[in-house]
Structures are given as structure tokens and as C-alpha cells.
């Protein structure tokens, strides 16, 4: 149950604006480093640099699924509304990263494979995960009662997260049982360093985004709770 006193302990900015600035600067720095340091790939040329954002986006997207799972469980266990809002924030940010992964993958695939889309195992399973995210967000949009919405989306979030490895495995089998997938090994040390730098940059941005989205929904809820206090005559 929601205590009306929740209005008094709204999240404060604290050091978060600084963290946000740091995340953005880190992201810009990682991009600059990637462009400056790495030599053009033997096969792919400068196109290879898309991997610096595509791969970290995919990693971070998987991480947001874990965050959704974690807060969904926490909500069902403790029934704290804030956990539901955190799960929802993570799902929104996750679907953004998921969409980014897909678009970057397609931009890379067009010159690399000559087609915008290929039923590659990773790309395909990412698309399925994106659709699962979409379903989760659609459910939230179609259910108005906050308690029911929280309860249902926690269940859907958990089911979706359980399914992530199964989807990936099934799609990979579906591909590999028909054709062997080639994965070129890149040994350039700068490639690895840049990939990691970008992974951290995306991680910081993700944390900052989830935090900001969560704060926004807390303020929305606080406005509703203020209306409750007035309605109950307890102001």
C-alpha cells in the first residue's frame, strides 16, 4: 500500500547531474578514441567502427533485461511501488538500446552482407527480444490501475527475462542447423580496448537514463499522491 508520506521523500538530484555529465563526456571520449586510434579494418574499412557502438549497445541491452527481472522479482516479493517504477524505467531504456542495436546492426549489415536484414542468429534474437519489450510496454500502456499494472508487468517482465536465453538458443540452433555461422576474429588490441571503453560509456549512460526515467515517474506519482492527500482531506 502506498503511504501518502511518500510525497516528502522524493529523490533528490544529489551528485546525479555530475554523473550524467561524466557519462556523456565518457561517451564522447570513447567515440573520439575509437575514431582516432583504430586503423581501418582490412576487410571492412572504417565500417568496422560501427562495432564499437553496436556490440556495447547489445551488451547493455542484455543487462537491462537483468535489471527488469531483478526489480520485477523485488516488486512481487516486497510489493514496493518504487521497484515497479524502476523495472518500467529499465524496460524503456532497454527497448531504446535494443532498437539502437538493431539499427546499428542493419547499418553494418547493408555494406557487409549486401542486405539490410539477414536472419543472423544474434540479430534475429535481438529482434524477438525487442518485440518482447514492446509487449511489456504495451501492457503498461493498456492497464490503468497502478497496482494491477505493477503486478501484471512484474509477471510479464519475469516471463520475458526467463525466455531470453531460450529465445537466443532456439534461434541459434535454427540457424546453425542449416548453415555454419562465420565470426571473424579480430585481434587488433585497440579494437578490444575501444570495445571495452564504449561498453563502460554505454553502461554509465544506461544507469543515468534509468535513474532519470525513474525520477520522472516518481514525480508523476508524487503529483497523483498529492491529489490523493487533498481528496482524503489530509493535507
Amino acid at each position, binding site marked *: 500500500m502506498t503511504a501518502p508520506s511518500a510525497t516528502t521523500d522524493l529523490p533528490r538530484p544529489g551528485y546525479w547531474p555530475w554523473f550524467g555529465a561524466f557519462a556523456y563526456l565518457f561517451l564522447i571520449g570513447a567515440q573520439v578514441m575509437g575514431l582516432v586510434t583504430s586503423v581501418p579494418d582490412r576487410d571492412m574499412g572504417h565500417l568496422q567502427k560501427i562495432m564499437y557502438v553496436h556490440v556495447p549497445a547489445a551488451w547493455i541491452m542484455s543487462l537491462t533485461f537483468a535489471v527488469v527481472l531483478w526489480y520485477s522479482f523485488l516488486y512481487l516479493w516486497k510489493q514496493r511501488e518504487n521497484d515497479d517504477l524502476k523495472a518500467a524505467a529499465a524496460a524503456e531504456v532497454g527497448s531504446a538500446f535494443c532498437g539502437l542495436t538493431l539499427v546499428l546492426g542493419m547499418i553494418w549489415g547493408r555494406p557487409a552482407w549486401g542486405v539490410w536484414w539477414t536472419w543472423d542468429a544474434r540479430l534475429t534474437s535481438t529482434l524477438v527480444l525487442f518485440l518482447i519489450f514492446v509487449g511489456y510496454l504495451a501492457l503498461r500502456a493498456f492497464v490503468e490501475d497502478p497496482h494491477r499494472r505493477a503486478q501484471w508487468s512484474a509477471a510479464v517482465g519475469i516471463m520475458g527475462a526467463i525466455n531470453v536465453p531460450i529465445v537466443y538458443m*532456439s534461434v541459434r540452433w535454427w540457424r546453425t542447423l542449416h548453415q555454419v555461422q562465420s565470426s571473424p576474429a579480430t585481434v587488433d588490441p585497440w579494437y578490444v580496448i575501444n570495445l571495452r571503453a564504449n561498453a563502460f560509456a554505454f553502461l554509465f549512460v544506461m544507469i543515468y537514463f534509468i535513474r532519470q526515467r525513474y525520477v520522472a515517474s516518481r514525480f508523476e506519482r508524487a503529483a497523483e499522491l498529492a491529489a490523493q492527500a487533498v481528496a482524503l482531506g489530509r493535507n
Partner: protein
Amino acid sequence: MAWKDDWRRVRAIVWKDLTTEGRSKAGFNSVAALGVTILVLFGFALGPDTQALRDAASGALWLAVLFAGVLAFNRSYQVELESGALEPLLLYPGARWTIFAGKLLANTIFVGLMLVIVVLVGIVLFQVNIPDAWPKLVAVLALGSIGLVSLGTFYAAMASRSRAREVLLPLLLFPMLVPVLLAAMSASKALLSGDMMHEAGAWMNMLVAYDVIFVVAPLLAFEHVIEV
């Protein structure tokens, strides 16, 4: 005995769902007819070439079952919502998972019967040669429909009570069913073409794993979904 009470509830739900469904046969008949219609449309889309039809038979069959089955899941809760019967159902003391288990069994029987019709029609329309390993094919059909029905029954508990239930259920359900559809389609396709690569077994293992996970998880989560 608690488990006796639980089992009695499960049986009562199965009996009630199947009896009401059986007395208004229009429901089953129209869902099965829709399944057959979808098969016919796939036939048009895939052209009259016999080999093309045979190759696509398993995919067309599973999609027909999926599209027709999705109507059955919302119907299953429609019976409760129509005359306010969901409230008394929730007011009976005892574990709520029994409601899910009962509806899961009833829907499995419902979809299973539809599957029989669709498969028989599909064999004729798509000129499928029945392989020697047909018992395995039956097992694939059963395993595939359990996974489909379990998640369908679970998500319909939410979708049927939300706005826009017609669109919400497929939107939630279809992406979740990708593994079960891939496994069921691939396994049946392999079996229909003689299973030269011996891949059907691997897919069937995946179906079993999927079914176990997605029968147990909804059983545990159902209480949280139906109570609000």
C-alpha cells in the same frame, strides 16, 4: 487433505470449461473452421507446386494452430467475465493455481481437438506423406501445443481483462512463443522429410525444456496475476 481439495478444484474447472464449451458448440466449430481457413489461405500463398507445399506444410500448420488458438485463450476467460463469474471463482478459498491448472488442461484439450482437425486437413491439402516415425510427430504436436496453451492461458488472464484485449494478447504472446514455434516447426519438418540429420530429437528436447519452464512459471505466477 489439501492436495485432494486442489485436485477436486482442478477437475471441477476442467469439467465446467469443457461442458460449457461443449454445449455451445459454435465456439469450437468456428475456431476449428478458422484454423482450416488459414491453412487454405497458406495453400494459396505458397502456390500449387507440390514440393513447395510439402516443404512449407509444418510451418503453415503451426501458424494456423497459433492464429486460431489465440482466439480460444481469451474465450476461456470470456466465460467467466460474461456473467460476473470470475468474482465467485476468486472468492472460493484455496490455492489459485488450481484455476490455472484447470484452465490449462481444458484449453489443452480444446486446442488438441482443433489440432487434430487442422492436421488431418493439412495432410490432405499439402499432400503430406506420413513418415514411419509418425508417433514422434504426434509427440511433437503434443509438446508444441502444451507450450502454446500454457503461455496463452497465462497471458489471456491479463489480456482478457484489459482494454484492447484482441491486440494485447498476440502482442504479448507471439514473441514469447518464438522458441516453441521454431522447435515445433523444425522438428515436424525434419520428421516429415525423414529426419536425415537426426535433428528432431534435439528440438524435442528443447520443447520438453520449454514446456517444463513455461508450465511451472505461470503456475507460480498466476496467483499474482488473477488477484488484481
